[in-house]
């Protein structure tokens, strides 16, 4: 194969396409990678303008070694998606330095395609999708520009960017067909690619300040739609994620992984008219953990999910990708009302010995006054309500006996402080209690009918076990700051002005301006539909779509449909192409002339490609002595009318003569 130089006008396209493919990686590539990108692209541009030469073999080897070392050092001991991506990007960038011929251009374009696709592992929202389309257009333009040749004048009539746009538009139907019908082979593609990126979200341990930190993040946690149309009141929206039943004097954490899990078994969903049942569907952002979010009294309704003995919804595998699952809850169901096991009882009462003596004493004193468990808890709540406790996103830093300090001196705290203190006091008084972490509330999008729960909705509350009632939710935060539960965090800390104060550009801050808020909600619902219909379209939903919308029984028919739509597409394309390049309609004169030539050919006078009318008629006249004179006269007339005095009308008059003569050829 002869090496073809890269056309000069292709280089800007190639550089732009490669730069474009990197944008989705902004969030995780190290800074030096950007310097490398700038240096390499700059160098290649200087080669283009003729100021420097291609780097030598030794320099290239050095660059490869240095880049590899850079990747290894940057991601030392944390091999994950980011490090692999960084290595790929470094390799793609260095390829620019030896991009000499057209085939190198191909490599760069294909690498950029791959880099772009890898970017979707990190960003999947609708903006990333649109941006991806833009990049595909850039890449397509680069590919077309690579094929420009200075002599191909026909191509030059159309600019590459327009041509690329046309190609993408034309292939749109094919893309949709592939999207809907191409088999989604989840076992092969569904790697749980582990990302080393630190995620904002609940963690397995809870120190008092943790959830307050979450309060500063407006990242999406999950979205909920209520599939039955019954929506619980806002103060009932306690999304349980995990139970923290062990206290080490500082942190709350789960005692052990859940022992018994009741996995979902595919069973026909009982059609129920139960007014207390809430059926819902959740699209959850990746957490890297196994817990899922659900209301109280949950039962699993999706393969791969199950319910623990503590009444929590969990997933079989850690959630590394965005997932979508159904669940249903009867919030009124009592939890373990029949009684606690001995182990459970001991666990729900255990406390480290030496910490928070003041609180223990306080609990003991209250206990003497209130023998009933319920009374005791109510007293605690009124204690929080009646004393000058303050709900804040900026709690004071507490010392080693943090609950003592919190209860009796600082009295400033976030939900975790209140929940922790209440559970501590309850346990001190011999009442089984535990902390539950999750989210509370969310933003209801009334127009589209779904609930958006963000990280700042993170919440912690308490559950106490009461004889005959089982585990009962007790939320001390509701006693201190009822507006937190009624209206959400923003209202609760409105006086303090600390809501998302670190995030200057957060869209959540636009709530005050009416039309901007509408815009924000519109965009949010757009993203919601994107997640619901595009990102969550997996093999299961494809099956549902095939059978539900298209009425297909099995995959085989789906494949046949896929194949036939390809066939139809290419058939249509070829018909269009043929139509555009079909020969122009012939004039009556030309049809008559063709007829004459056909008859002549039958008589042995075949028209050569180079025959002019007069040459052909001359030959024909010599071979047809009977009509020789007419043919020679015709020859003279045609020459006159076609070439000497153009006269369309008289030329049309020749048609009949031509036909008549054609018939007389023997």
């Amino acid at each position: 194969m002869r090496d073809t130089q890269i056309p000069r006008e292709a280089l800007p396209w190639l550089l732009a396409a490669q730069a474009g493919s990197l944008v989705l990686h902004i969030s995780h590539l190290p800074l030096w990678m950007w310097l490398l990108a700038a240096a390499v692209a700059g160098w290649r541009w200087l080669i283009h303008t003729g100021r420097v030469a291609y780097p030598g073999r030794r320099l290239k080897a050095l660059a490869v070694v240095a880049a590899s070392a850079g990747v290894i050092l940057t991601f030392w001991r944390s091999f994950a998606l980011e490090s692999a991506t960084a290595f790929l990007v470094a390799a793609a960038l260095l390829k620019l330095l030896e991009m000499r011929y057209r085939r190198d251009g191909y490599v760069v374009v294909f690498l950029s395609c791959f880099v772009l696709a890898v970017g979707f592992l990190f960003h999947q929202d609708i903006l990333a999708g649109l941006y991806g389309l833009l990049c595909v257009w850039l890449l397509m333009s680069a590919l077309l520009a690579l094929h420009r040749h200075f002599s191909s004048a026909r191509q030059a009539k159309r600019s590459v960017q327009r041509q690329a746009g046309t190609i993408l538009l034309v292939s749109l139907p094919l893309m949709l067909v592939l999207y809907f019908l191409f088999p989604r082979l989840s076992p092969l593609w569904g790697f749980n690619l582990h990302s080393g990126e630190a995620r904002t979200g609940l963690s397995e341990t809870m120190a008092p300040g943790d959830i307050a930190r979450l309060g500063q993040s407006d990242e999406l946690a999950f979205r909920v739609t209520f599939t039955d149309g019954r929506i619980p009141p806002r103060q009932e929206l306690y999304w349980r994620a995990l139970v923290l039943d062990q206290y080490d004097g500082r942190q709350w954490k789960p005692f052990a992984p859940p022992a018994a899990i009741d996995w979902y078994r595919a069973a026909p969903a009982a059609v129920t008219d139960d007014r207390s049942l809430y059926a819902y569907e959740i699209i959850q952002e990746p957490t890297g953990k196994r817990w899922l979010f659900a209301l109280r009294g949950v039962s699993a309704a999706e393969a791969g999910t199950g319910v623990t003995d503590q009444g929590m919804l969990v997933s079989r595998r850690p959630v590394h990708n965005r997932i979508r699952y159904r669940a249903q809850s009867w919030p009124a169901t009592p939890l373990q009302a029949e009684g606690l096991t001995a182990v459970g009882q001991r666990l729900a009462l255990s406390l480290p010995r030496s910490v928070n003596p003041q609180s223990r004493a306080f609990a003991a004193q209250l206990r003497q006054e209130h023998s009933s468990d319920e009374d005791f808890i109510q007293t605690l709540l009124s204690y929080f309500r009646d004393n000058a406790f303050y709900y804040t996103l900026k709690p004071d830093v507490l010392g080693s006996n943090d609950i003592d300090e919190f209860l009796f001196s600082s009295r400033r705290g976030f939900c975790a402080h209140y929940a922790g203190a209440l559970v501590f006091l309850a346990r001190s008084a011999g009442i089984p209690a535990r902390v539950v972490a999750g989210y509370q509330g969310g933003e209801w999008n009334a127009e589209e009918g779904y609930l958006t729960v963000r990280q700042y909705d993170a919440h912690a509350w308490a559950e106490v076990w009461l004889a005959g009632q089982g585990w009962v939710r007790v939320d001390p935060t509701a006693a201190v700051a009822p507006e937190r539960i009624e209206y959400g965090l923003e209202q609760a800390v409105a006086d303090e002005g600390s809501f998302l104060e670190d995030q200057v550009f957060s869209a959540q801050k636009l709530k005050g301006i009416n039309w901007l808020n509408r815009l924000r909600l519109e965009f949010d619902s757009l993203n919601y539909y994107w997640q619901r219909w595009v990102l969550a379209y997996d093999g299961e939903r494809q099956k549902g779509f095939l059978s539900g919308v298209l009425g297909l029984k099995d995959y085989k028919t789906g494949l046949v449909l896929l194949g036939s739509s390809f066939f139809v597409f290419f058939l249509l394309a070829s018909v269009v192409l043929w139509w555009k390049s079909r020969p122009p309609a012939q004039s009556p004169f030309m049809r008559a002339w063709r007829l004459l030539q056909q008859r002549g050919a039958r008589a042995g006078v075949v028209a050569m490609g180079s025959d002019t009318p007069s040459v052909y008629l001359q030959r024909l006249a010599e071979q047809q002595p009977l009509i020789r004179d007419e043919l020679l006269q015709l020859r003279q007339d045609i020459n006159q009318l076609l070439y000497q005095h153009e006269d369309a009308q008289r030329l049309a008059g020749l048609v009949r003569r031509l036909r008549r003569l054609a018939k007389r050829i023997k």
Partner: protein
Amino acid sequence: MSPAVSRVLRQLNDVILGKEEQIKLALSCLLARGHLLIEDLPGMGKTTLSHALAGVLGLEYKRIQFTSDLLPADILGVSIFEREAGTEAGRFRFHPGPVFTQVLLADEINRATPKAQSALLEAMEEGQVTIEGETRPLPQPFFVIATQNPVSQSGTFPLPESQLDRFLMRIQLGYPDPQAERELLEGKDRRAMASALQAELSNEELAQLQQQVKQVKASASVLDYLQRIIAFTRYEGGYQYGLSPRGALALLHSAKAWALVDGGREYLLPEDVQAVLAAVVDHRLAEAADGGAHSVSQRILNAVPVLL
């Protein structure tokens, strides 16, 4: 046919025997105001033809024999310092080179180095030469008739495409047929006959003929045919480069001149285009692949329909 043209043709045919076709092409080329390149082996009558053409058209002509050590100054002229008699003072005086003429015979143009070739080719394109910063117009009309040996011969510098493009036509003479050869052997010295030719045209008559060529009518059908040919060379024929717009104009002008010279017609026939096609396009088109048995122009003729 105009009497002047037929007189010129008769005179030329007396000198160059059995080459009516080539003579008509050469005359058409000059009437279309184009430069002519004659390519053939040594001794085929190239120089005689060019001598005869200049003589019969009544034009002043000069001749340069191109050699590998020819310098641009040998073609264009040079300024020489001349001292006034008896004094120290003096001034530079320009001695015009052989290029300052109406017909320039550039014999064996591919023997000279590209430097010398380009000096001439500039003059062909611009109709003027710039020497030592001063632009000097050339006499009108200005024709270059260049001859060259086929490039396969050793010791030649083939003209690049851009320079070949400046020649309106390239013709080949070929061996004479036996009858013409016998006449040649029996007859007088052809070179002497060429030098002794009487001018048949005045400069005014020549200009008038050139004007007539321009007025030859090209009908839509002929222009369609011509454009089909151009399109074929660009998109289908498998040539490295198609005909440029200048090539298309060259084809049109040559065909018009041919219509006048060959038939004395004032309108174009497709036959005229076909007649000049080989002379006009063969040297402009390089074939990407081996074209087979047919020449470039023959392939075009066979592939492009005259009427569509």
